[in-house]
């Protein structure tokens, strides 16, 4: 199917029926269809069931700490802009533990795809509320229901000036794949918030719930360059719009804006070794 698929059997640690499976299929297809060189793709992820995704894809990865996948991805991309870098994790990982990195990497606009599994619940730690859990959702730590306002990641990303904001639902693998492809192809920071059910811990936001509470945008009709229109879609949470909400191709990505690359686009990792005589001149 995809050269990024494993050539041997692997024991995948997800629950049967987990939304991570169709998402994996979508990612594998996206990588295949973009015809990427496997050795030039790097995943960076944190901790959680979502963050295990790179384990099940045949490419390089940095599976680091909870919440820090984006920081690591940004650094990898900045020292070797030739690589295709994908940061991936769940809603707790990326919006909770990694919230500050989310804020500031949107500002940096690094050329990477940021894939966030949003099932509105914590899975690996067994069913606690996540930053995106809806009010009223009974969880193992909010036993009488969530009382805090849920985070709106797409509106937040837009407000921060993200150059690509998308949302998908794994109920449609093909459409999800297309958005992931667009996010990878986008030169700059591209977030895709991905709805998918947690079959074990979230009995409210189920497959059917996501299906009934979301709709796919007609990308021909929606002007993704219209920030106001995108923000309207993002703020309307009665029914969640799916698709590419916003894309700004004009924004300079980090690896072209940083002073290190302004006059010389040679990747850091390809530059010649430092001349020690120049350093020794500082000791004179």
């Amino acid at each position, binding site marked *: 199917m995809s050269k990024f698929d494993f050539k041997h059997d692997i024991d995948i*640690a997800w629950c049967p029926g987990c939304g991570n499976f169709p998402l994996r299929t979508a990612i594998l297809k996206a990588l295949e269809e973009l015809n990427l060189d*496997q*050795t*030039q793709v*790097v995943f*960076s992820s944190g*901790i959680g069931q979502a963050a*295990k995704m*790179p*384990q099940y894809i*045949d*490419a*390089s*990865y*940095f*599976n*680091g*700490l909870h919440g*820090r996948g984006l*920081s*690591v*991805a*940004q*650094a*990898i991309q*900045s*020292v*070797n802009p*030739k*690589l295709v870098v994908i940061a991936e994790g769940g809603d707790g990982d990326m919006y909770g533990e990694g919230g*500050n*990195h989310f*804020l*500031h990497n949107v500002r940096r606009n690094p050329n990477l795809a940021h894939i966030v599994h949003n099932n509105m619940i914590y899975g690996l730690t067994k069913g606690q509320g996540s930053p995106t859990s809806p009010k009223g959702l009974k969880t193992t730590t909010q036993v009488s229901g969530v009382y805090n306002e849920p985070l709106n990641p797409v509106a937040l990303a837009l407000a921060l000036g993200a150059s690509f904001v998308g949302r998908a639902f794994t109920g449609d693998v093909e459409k999800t794949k297309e958005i992931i492809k667009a996010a990878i192809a986008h030169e700059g920071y591209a977030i895709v918030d991905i709805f998918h059910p947690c079959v074990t811990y979230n009995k409210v936001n189920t497959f059917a719930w996501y299906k009934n509470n979301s709709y796919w945008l007609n990308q021909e009709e929606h002007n993704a360059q219209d920030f106001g229109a995108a923000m309207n879609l993002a703020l309307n949470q009665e029914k969640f719009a799916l698709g590419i909400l916003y894309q700004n191709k004009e924004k300079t990505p980090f690896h072209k804006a*940083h*002073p*290190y690359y302004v006059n010389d686009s040679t990747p*850091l*990792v390809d*530059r010649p*070794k*430092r001349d*020690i005589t*120049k*350093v*020794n001149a*500082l*000791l*004179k």
Partner: protein
Amino acid sequence: MKESLSIVVSGEAGQGLATIEEFLVEALSMEYYVFTSKEVMSRVRGGNNTFELRVATSPIHSLRKTIDYLFLLNNNSFYRLPKRLLPTTVVFGEDAFVSVEEKEKYSLKYEILELTKLAKEAGSRMFANTILFGYIAGMLELNVKVAEHLITKRFIHRGEPIVADNISAFTKGYELGLAYEATLKLKKPASVPPFKVIDGNTALGIGLLGGGINYLSSYPMSPGTSVMMYLTNKADEFGVLVEQAEDEIAALNMALGASYAGARSMVTTSGGGFALMTEAVSLAGIIETPAVIHVAQRPGPATGLPTRTEQGDLNLVVYAGHGEFPRIILSPGKLEDGVLLAQKAFWLADKYQVPVFILSDQYWLESLGQMTSFELSEQYMESFTVISDKDYKRYQLTDDGISPRAIPGFGEGFVKVDSDEHDESGQITEDFDVRIAMQNKRMNKRELLLADYQDAELIGPKNYKKLLVGWGSTYGVLKEFIETTSLSDVAYLYVKQPFPLPTSLKSYFDQAQQVVVVENNYTGQFANILTLELGVNVTDRVNKYNGEPFFIEELNEQLGEVLK
């Protein structure tokens, strides 16, 4: 104590004390041995800041507590200093800077020096610092040409007229200083070898460049930020990608990401910021990705004394990070070692795939001293990375525990690193046998890396019976103690790598009947490590933890009591 003059200039933040200090130390370095250090309050303007310029007839790298000449720059600059006065101290300043009562109380030898008035006469209040530079240069009869050259170098970018005005202000100060009949004099040494005047920050910066640094991510925190500023200023010329992180957690994770992708990366911080990095230190341990971490110590706990000094974070860096994994801690005390150890840090981190710490402190970083010129070798730029083949396994089990490290994108293989326990390919595992193999492999490096232990230096007689031990910034003051003590059976062991320690270090303690560990902290953290790691019987501890470095007089007194 070595023969010296201690000149203290006391003013407030924003008065340009650092400029006078730099001028004086550069000019003095041509004709005297000199060492200088500043102490500042944690504020941007106002308060009371001082610097001490210690001028000597032989090499020195430490401070005196007592003051010979005190220059006051405002009416708020005297109140903290009376306990540092000698009966012979001469105080210079405007008459109103010290009250009549205080002048009487301390029997001050008070010389009126109206810098603001003189500066206005010279054309602008702005010249006050240059006049003071001239005055002190005149008192010490320094070479005028050297001073003029320094002034030109400093002001030429602002135009010839500014240079000329400053030189004339300098001359005015110089003549007054020359005319002053000094009561305390210091004979000029016959000759002084050429030195580079340098502070710890710059020494580290140069060493890091010599080690091949090309990526730095950090969040500002005093006193760790100066290294970041130095490298930012050199970034264009030397090719360093500097990124200010949103927090320290991001900083070290970014440095590890950069290192994984092939950069020579580092972070610089202080204790509080480093506390936030500890999870990522542990990550570096398990993913075996090199990282250099500069921790500039200041007194804690928590915010503590933000602009002062302490050696209180050795335990923190020795034990930082959950789980067990090897690490290296280097701590320079000599300026030369600042350069050399910083250079070697990257090489060690790469060679052994472990986190390497450079542990400094505010006092060491911000003191200016004289360093003999030398050249760095290219040897430490060596990278230990490999090009991956199709079957590449990042954590391949090898005889010595070091797995060849490839960089993603270079070769046909995949580079998989995992904070979970992993198998040879880097895949997550919960197999107990694999766990044991991987933990053994990582911990095996603990012994292995001692092959590159940074040897300690013994200063003093080889047939010592009493051994003083210090690490890092206590070097200058302990060395002066050894050079000036009347005791013939005392030596000083200057430790450059406080952790981990090789058993060979024990031999230094075999002949010592008394082991005195001198540390700028409360508990004697290194003394504890010596006992814990090597079973050394530490007989005495000398500690200081008020936020200041050791002064030579204090150390003489404290050691005098201990070395009986």
